[in-house]
């Protein structure tokens, strides 16, 4: 079947298999920032935004996104400068192996759009679906606080 999806501001008209998951479609199209880590919708590494809301692409049928707008980590990444969130993640050492980071960036972008001045508890609550095995989360919370401040002061 054929679907029309806007991915990172680019329009696609693509042939998909019935039952194809968005994670698979995006990776096939070259959006490798969308990570496959758990297969049970438990870890958040595959998070993308659909119409601005964070969604797990591993458990979203591509067919369901027909006519919608998808944004992956690549859509939040400029070649020149890093976003405030990306910059803060690096400064705080909040990316170790980096495998969970694309999902974290996409989710944190949604958080800061909804709530530009979140407190620690709000950050933890919003990002609780994004697992990380490396950092123990402390540095990631620090990074999001810092990024939020930088965005507010922009």
């Amino acid at each position, binding site marked *: 079947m054929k679907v029309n999806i806007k991915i990172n501001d680019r329009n696609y008209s693509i042939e998909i298999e019935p039952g194809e998951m968005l994670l698979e479609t995006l990776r096939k199209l070259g959006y490798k920032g969308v990570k*496959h880590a758990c297969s049970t919708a438990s870890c958040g590494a595959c998070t993308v935004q659909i119409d601005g809301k964070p969604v797990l692409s591993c458990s979203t049928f591509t067919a369901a996104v027909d006519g919608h707008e998808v944004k992956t980590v690549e859509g939040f990444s400029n070649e020149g400068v890093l976003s405030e969130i990306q910059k803060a993640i*690096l400064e705080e050492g909040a990316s170790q*192996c980096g495998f969970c980071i694309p999902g974290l*960036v996409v989710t944190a972008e949604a958080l800061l759009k909804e709530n530009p001045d979140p407190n620690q508890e709000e950050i933890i609550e919003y990002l609780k679906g994004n697992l990380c*095995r490396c950092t123990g989360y402390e540095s990631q919370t620090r990074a999001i606080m810092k990024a939020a401040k930088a965005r507010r002061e922009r």
Partner: protein
Amino acid sequence: MSRVLTKEKLNVVNTPVEKVDGKALVRGKPVFTDDFDLPNALTVKILRSPHAHAIIKSIDTSAAMIEGVACILTYKDVPHVIYTRAGQGYPEPSPYDTFILDKKVRYVGDAVAIIAAENENIAERAMKLIKVDYEILPAVLDYEHAQDPEAPVIHNEPEISGAYDPKHNIASHYEMEIGNVEEELKKCDYTVDEVYYTPNQSHAMMETHAAISYFDPNGRLTVITSTQVPFHARRILNRLFGVNCRVIKPRIGGGFGGKQALHVEPYVVAVTLKTGRPAKCVYTREETMTASNTRHAMRFRVRAGAMKDGTLKAIELWGLSNTGAYGEHALTVFMVAGSKTLPLYNKVKAVKFGGDVVYSNTEPAGAFRGYGAPQGMFALDSALDELARKIGMDPITFKLKNSIREGETSPIFKIMGEGREGVEQIIRSCKIEECAIEGAKIFNWYEKIKKPRIDMKNKIAHGYGVAFAMQGSSIPAIDMGGATLKMNDDGTFNLLVGATDLGTGSDTILAQIAAEVLHTTVDKITVYSSDTDITPFDKGAYASSTTYVSGNAVKSAAEKMKKEILKAASELFEKPVELLDLEEDKVVCEDGRSISFSELQTKLFYTFNQRQLEVTESFVSEVAPPPYLVSFAEVEIDMETGKVKVVDFLNYIDCGVTINPVLARGQVEGASAQGIGMALFEDHIMDRNGRLITDDFFTYKIPARGDIGKIEVRFAKSYEPTGPFGAKSVSEIGLDTPGPAIANAIYDALGIRMRRLPIRSEELFFEIRKKYG
């Protein structure tokens, strides 16, 4: 006298430089194994045993050879070479007890057949069409019964070598004694004699195991793999297939020891050798959980005794370790449970350590961050906490009174190495007093312990626990790291290291070390790491060795490069080397002249004494200086559910000089979280047939954001004279303390001693019920 480096003298080391691979990672660039798409690549899937212990009577693949299947390989089709997947140095300390595929399967998840197809769907369809007839054997699912007289023999293959007593399911055995524990215990005023358990734990790195193999255009077999040991992987693949190959490690999505073993590499290589085509295999989460490696579950009986004044006299740790179906790291992990815990209490009159490592029909255990020390330290520190309370002493005072100090040694360093004898060493940096005393102040220990613990009205209890730990830095006299530096005419350097960055940031800290010596900045150092055809050898990322061993290799190479630069400039300026020095990307001469690195190498390329400046150095350590850690835990317990929340966890660590304080802090924070998971949540639950039920992130609970309270990290002012710029290891030690600190805190809160990890809330709840009604 140890020199204390002040920050003023350092420009790059001891500063929070951002990770050199960080920009790619935060942008989600395609840098991991599964991100590489090779044209014409086959998808590889593994058919796995549904039985814990069985013999394959027959296997029929004919119906599975559907359109799109390139090959199906069974034990009849792959080299019958006995080996160990452990991924260690050579000679290998783990027993040879494994085949790529075997006629016998030894755990639920053991590999039965390799399927290679045009895509995943075809491979999965084909997998279901393979007909296997099993003769099911009785299985050992509980390792405490592995040595029962009626227990089935798991390894009866005639080719096995290096196992201690496979006929009785004993993979390894070790024992040692200094002094006479029995006699000393008799003289003690207070003794403890208790048994402690630590569980299997899954690494649960976010990136599952993955590898790709292919022939490059010149026909060289190349393997891209998510490994911690590219050079060992190359050596072991050669042993299995008799073929030379190139192993490339891209970015790794976490390893924690789980990627030290060879998991996927032999399967893809077998397919590429058979078909000539590129082959890719990416494990599912379920495969990573059930069919890779786990932490060795252990049981320790601890006997310890002390005098009224708190003088510790004797310690005995007698253990049983579960290595699962194969003996990967069986002996070495077990020995570390003693060798990296007992020297901390070096003032005892007598010490004894030993026990068996047994086979069982469960997932093979392997290397996991801490490498036995978390298991040993949970038992030892818990027992010492019990002893302190019997004596009526503050546990900090008791543990500190008996622990090792700078300038001292322990005979255990010499007696116990990893799988063999160790090396003598005098401790040249140990700030455990600062860790304990200053840590207690920051944690408000002495204020907190004055507070009432139980709020009966709200059914909430608070408790405070402390745990001490040590680790090592490398395997001395074995681990080697190499580094090559090459100067370019644009004034940059290429740093080539075999060292394996698995997310820890080693590429970054190694670049910092080189930049510091060469009076340049990290952006001028381009790091290429872990490519066996390009970079010099390195043992890989394990045994807390990278900062120390690879770091020393880089420092040594950079110092040699500095000499080469000064020599070239001395020839150019016609001035003796003594009048020259490096300063901010250039060579400066006493007479005021200077030349930039860029200009110098350009002249050396084209117009003057033409040569490429390039150096290679290697480093092997004679010692393994331990880092030290004192951790303080505050727990909050809901007495109506038994739920434990770690509200505050303070680590005060002596890891020498931190090459990169932000990355070092991250290592400790991350290890604490994994330790909290091991202490409270992470649990392997099997069904009665030996199938792991907790095989995904839904059922196997790793700490999520809301499960972690505050984790704090403080660094002691410490300088290790043998380390690069005073550094010691930092990555593993943080896992040693959460188990005992939390169990000690629970005891402090409720007077209930939990001697088995993970501390399940339901079990604690039943204990609370018994005690408080």
